[in-house]
């Protein structure tokens, strides 16, 4: 198992290098730093000096990958590729346009992001699985049909609607919680309730329907017939047998997203004014802060790869038959 994990981690390296090369190509080759400077400065204020200053401020005034003017190893290190892309592997993301250190900013903003994403994830999983089990318990009845129709209808509603509608109803009409904002400590609870509930409701349609399909597939298996033939009640069959055996397909889709919870949710955080990584990313996109977007792409893919590994490991925990080698 340890050997497997190490091998998988080694396999992650070329993928991260690929991500790194891709973002490098996207940000520095498709458009030269001169193009970006011209765009950010605006067409009117563009002078060669302004472009030079813009590039120097951000460290984009070096050659892309090969510095012929430098000596020794500096031919490789005194380049944009090395200073902007390679150093990400060491956790050095450079500075944002406002001069702040991106790595520190990310560390600070992870907390609020998790404070929303984690409860949403856990509660969402619990609610969706319970709802799906309920539908399966009443399968092939009107209740099941109505439940599926409800799921499809809820899937068809834009996520923006849940947020806008929820904010309007709960905060503006009922005045139950503040409409947006955030604070540290226990005070945060009143800001978190609404985004978490909206997140759960918004995700329930597609996930409950998916879990229902998985449960229905399991329920046709032989071991379920055996369990029923033994005289077990339907409740015991569902909770003790079907639920456990359905864990494997559920884990495939679920574990992989756990690490990416750190990234926060773009929409929720920006609508509710939560100072997390999601709103950080959105602000960076709107301000066209390329350094931040590049860093978030890198971190996102690192977390995704961790998630894939965690998925494999979770299989062995859920199912003793699975052996990783």
């Amino acid at each position, binding site marked *: 198992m340890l050997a497997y994990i190490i091998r998988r981690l080694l396999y992650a390296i*070329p*993928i991260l290098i*690929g*991500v790194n090369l*891709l*973002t490098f190509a*996207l*940000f520095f080759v*498709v*458009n030269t730093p001169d*193009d*970006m400077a*011209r*765009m950010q400065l605006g067409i009117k204020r563009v002078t060669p000096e302004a472009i030079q200053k813009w590039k120097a401020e951000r460290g984009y005034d070096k050659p892309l990958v090969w510095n012929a003017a430098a000596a020794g190893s500096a031919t490789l290190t005194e380049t944009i590729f090395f200073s902007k892309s390679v150093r990400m592997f060491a956790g050095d993301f450079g500075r944002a346009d406002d001069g702040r250190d991106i790595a520190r900013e990310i560390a600070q903003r992870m907390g609020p992001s998790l404070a929303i994403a984690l409860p949403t994830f856990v509660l969402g999983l619990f609610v969706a699985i319970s709802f799906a089990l309920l539908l399966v318990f009443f399968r092939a009845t009107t209740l099941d049909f109505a439940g599926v129709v409800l799921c*499809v*209808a809820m*899937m*068809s*509603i*834009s*996520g*923006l*609607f849940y947020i*806008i509608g929820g904010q*309007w109803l709960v905060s503006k009409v009922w005045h139950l919680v503040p409409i947006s904002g955030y604070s540290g400590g226990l005070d945060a609870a009143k800001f978190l309730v609404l985004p978490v509930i909206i997140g759960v409701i918004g995700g329930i349609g597609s996930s409950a329907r998916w879990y229902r399909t998985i449960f229905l597939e399991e329920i046709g298996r032989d071991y379920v017939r055996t369990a029923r033939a033994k005289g077990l009640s339907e409740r015991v069959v569902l909770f003790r047998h079907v639920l456990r055996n359905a864990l494997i397909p559920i884990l495939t889709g679920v574990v992989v997203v756990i690490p*990416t919870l750190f*990234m926060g949710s*773009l*929409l929720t955080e920006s609508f509710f004014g939560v100072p997390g990584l999601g709103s950080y*990313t*959105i602000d960076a*996109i*709107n301000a*066209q802060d*390329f350094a931040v*977007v*590049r860093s*978030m*792409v890198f971190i*996102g*893919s690192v977390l*995704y*790869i961790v998630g*894939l590994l965690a998925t494999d490991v979770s299989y062995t925990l859920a199912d003793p038959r699975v052996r990783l080698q």
Partner: protein
Amino acid sequence: MGLSVQPVLLWSDALLFVLIGVIVGLSLWARRQDALRAAWARVLKDGVAMAAATVLAVFVLIGLLDSLHFRARLPAQAGAAASYAVEVNSALDALLSGLRQRTEKTYSAPLATHLYSKEALENSTQREFPRLKHGGAHLGENTVGKLVGHELDIAVRLSRGLAGGLALWLLLVAVVRQANGLDLRALMKVGAGGSAKSAAGGAVLITLLAIFLLLGAAISLGGGYHVFGTDKVGQDVLYLSLKAIRTGLLIGTLTTLVMLPAAVSLGILAGYVGGWVDDLIQYVYTTLSSIPGVLLIAAAVLMMQVVIDTHPDWFATSAERADARLLALCLILGMTSWTGVARLLRGETLKLRELEFVQAAQAFGVGRFAIMRRHILPNLMHIVLISLVMDFSGLVLAEAVLSYVGVGVDPTTISFGTMINTARMELAREPMVWWSLAAAFSFMFALVLAANLFADAVRDAFDPRSSA
């Protein structure tokens, strides 16, 4: 002598027509394949699916009308060569010219007669709600300046519209009955499937009734009022919603269209050839899919924006630039979403490769690429079709989110995302400006719900795992 209009073919129009051509061609081909015909027959017998398909057809019709672009000819001057307007309009614009041209000053509520905000009037010292230029302009005022018969007028128009819709529907039912009466004997000869087919037909007719009633009411009320109100610059919200349909359809279909060739060929290649080709392709799609989708899209769109902004000379009109941006967005969305389909196709190809008919073809000395094209590809078409219809609704929803994040379509392109984005800020006003949001969300809901229901039926009919 020239035409009174000059046709304009935007790139997205061309691609849309290519797509329609491909669909027509494929359906002609599918008619001759027994298995495919049987699967489609299952979809055709499904009442919910056919009702959804009817709604989708209406949306597609609106989208197609909106894809026939032209520039109108300006009033000719004696002796001068014909000149055309700079503005690019579509057939839908021409049909809805009433809605398009009747703009107000700013917001007005649905069916309102007065503007949303107070203004200082000419001959009075007080600030008052001014009358709308078009909404309810035909209504008279009594001596104290109050409107006469606003509610009554709405009720009359509404019932007239509903009655018109109902009459049209009854006419249609009569025609169908007439035609079916002739068909019935042919059906009886074949025998089976009669009742299911008529149930699906009934679902279509009921859906059509609902559509006709809504259409009748909208036309009748729209003649004198703004049915969904007006937006910040006074444009009719109903008109905007109808225009947004094309954008949604384009993003939902073209994205899948541009990614399919890559996804299909790479997926089959990886699964069939194996070895280092498989390793390489797997590496490429693992790398791409490991980047969170929104971020990759955001990064790519930001870069595309730089390209478009630094090359203003590439585009003759603003319509062309917006169109290029829409297409680029489809391309970027396709680039990021092909990995899932490719992975699925690779797995399925691995299974097919070991089956007897493929091995027999190999034994006969059929070439690799011929096997992939003639024996593997046709057996994967159901996966391609399912992913095509399943992706559609997700893409329509994604467009709204991306436009909100600021990496969606051009702000001048009318789409559900831009509508929601501009209307979002106005919720804080008192009284609330809710109608733009409501219209965008309900049109989007109808489109996506119909697409989801139809996709489910297609999946059930084509997926061999689900037993019919």
